[in-house]
């Protein structure tokens, strides 16, 4: 098991469940959150190393969540997940301190490489 923790935030619960399980199979501790509020709550309770954050969610937007998380834990690395049509949002997220962004659909191996790169600096 890797010694870092990943929080996956996406309103698509099925997506979250499958990806969390796949990361676990690969020895990465991951938790899921389906709303921004849920994610902020979990960040406050647990020290995550990496947050995978969907930018388009109902309620609190991905960029707002990003700013909140950064204010709570500035050292956490945030990798954004966007639809192809929201690349502009992804670039905006990078300006606000995100580490990287992926467009859906995501290749699991590319994702893990990027998580490890983020954790290891």
């Amino acid at each position, binding site marked *: 098991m890797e010694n870092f923790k990943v929080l996956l935030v996406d309103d*698509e619960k*099925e*997506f979250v469940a*499958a*990806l969390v*399980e*796949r990361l676990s*199979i*690969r020895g990465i501790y991951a938790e899921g959150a389906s709303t921004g509020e849920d994610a902020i709550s979990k960040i406050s309770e647990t020290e995550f190393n990496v947050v995978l954050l969907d930018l*388009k969610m109902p309620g609190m937007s991905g960029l707002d969540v990003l700013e909140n998380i950064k204010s709570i834990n500035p050292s956490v690395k945030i990798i954004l997940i966007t*639809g*192809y*049509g*929201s690349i502009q949002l992804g670039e905006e997220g990078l300006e606000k301190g995100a580490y990287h962004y992926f467009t*859906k*659909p*995501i290749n*699991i191996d590319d994702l893990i490489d990027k998580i490890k790169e983020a954790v290891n600096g």
Partner: protein
Amino acid sequence: MKILFKIYRNFVPKYLEDKTLPQESVFRYNRVWTYVVLLTSAVALTPLIFMTFININQYQKTFENEMMNPILALTSNAKRSLEFNFEERKAALTYVISDKSFKELSDGTKLANCFYNLKQSFGGFIDLGLIDSNGNQISYIGPYELQGKNYIDQNWFNEVRVRDFCISDVFMGFRGFPHFVMAVRHKNDIGAFYILRATIDVEFINWQIANLHLGPSCDAFLINRQGILQTSSHFFGDILEKYILNVPRYSSHEEVIEIKDDKGHPLILGYSYIEQSPFIFMAVESPEDLMKNWLSLRSSLLVFLFVSVIVIILVIFWSSTYMVNKIKEADIKRARVVHDLEYTNKMASIGRLAAGVAHEINNPMAIINQKAGLLKDIISAQNDNPYKDKFLGLADSILQSVDRCGTITHRFLGFAKRMDFKTAPIDLELLIKEVLGFLGKEANYRDIAVNLHVADSLPEIESDRGQLQQVFLNIINNAFAATSDGGNIDITIKEKHEFARVTITDSGHGIPEEHLENIFEPFYTTKKEGTGLGLSITYNIVQKLGGDIKVKSKVGKGTGFTVSLPIKNEAFK
């Protein structure tokens, strides 16, 4: 010839040559052109023509006055002179007959004395005779033997019997040369009368006419009231011949009129009835010489008018044509802008719709992707599962399909996302392959061979990806539409003079020459269901990208479009 044709084209409105314009547009342009020509012509030409004819009329009157006034003056002078001379001789005869008694005048010596005095004082007297009331010549002095001759049957005798004085017509008489008679009557105390008669030589009148100093084109003569020439005339014959034209109507004063001779030539006639005589003084002048200056001036005025009218009409035609051509160009430009705007709006709407749809599809695709991945992860861990390989194969198949869906949605978004021009380095070969990807299925179904030839070391170009996709999709779509099943489409990409040239050649039915120059016009189409916008939009995009598009075609052989695009695009800098 070419220059003439070029000039001619400036006067012919372009809408007449443009077979692609709708009938109502041609009608509208035609109406504008016609109104402008007619109104401008009316405003410009009416005053010119009006003023020219007023001028001509004024000049004509002036010339006529100048022409008639000398004749009027001549006639007036002649009338005064003749009347004075007749009056003078009448007074002299009256004096003689009043001063001398019948007896004294019957005395040949005394009559001869009187005749001598008259001849000395006044010219023209040929002879002198005393005639009693029975018409018998009592005494006679003159060159002929006329003593005792009776004049009772003579007109002049009968006339003077009634009136105190008479001048006869010119006649040859016993003397055999032209002369006329002046006779005065005297009544004595008992009421009997006798007549003093003098014969006057016509030369006396000729001499007076000669003294008028006529010009070579003028003729002056006397006629009597029956129209018999009383003196010779240059134009109308010798003395005592018939004057062939009508005798002018009586007027107490001199008149000038325009008449025509027997051949229809115009003449200016001045005439005057000489009082107390049967004579009419006539002065005739041919106006042709006098009119020469006037006719020359009138010709100049008419030539000036004609040339001015032609020049004005040409200028009006040219300016009207120029104006209508400009209106047509402005209309086309406006239509193009409207079309571009509509197209931009349409594409922006499609882009937003496509982005929304793609996003919505991407989310479930992401779930399928992860679920299939998870399935694969789980199966991979089950070494004892007899269907492991089959399940892994199925999972891979699902993942590949998800990838394909991803590619399609990405391409769709990339194609339709926005209309703003944004430069990026573009690999033209890759871009065209992407476009061909849209048409790959159709090519397979219709057995159309698409051959792509790319020059070695072709550099990337700076341009807008989305716009270029649109350009090549339009052209390649048209090539597919024109090509029969089993045909070929060749695409070559090469570099030439800082430009990348993409030539797309089909083996289709070709485009007739008359359509070639119009195919980039908006709404020009030869397809039954075409909008006529595709190539117009393509053309505009290529222009905006700083490039150029050309077409060559042969009916039955095929069509080739060449798109030239700058490798380094200054249009974006």
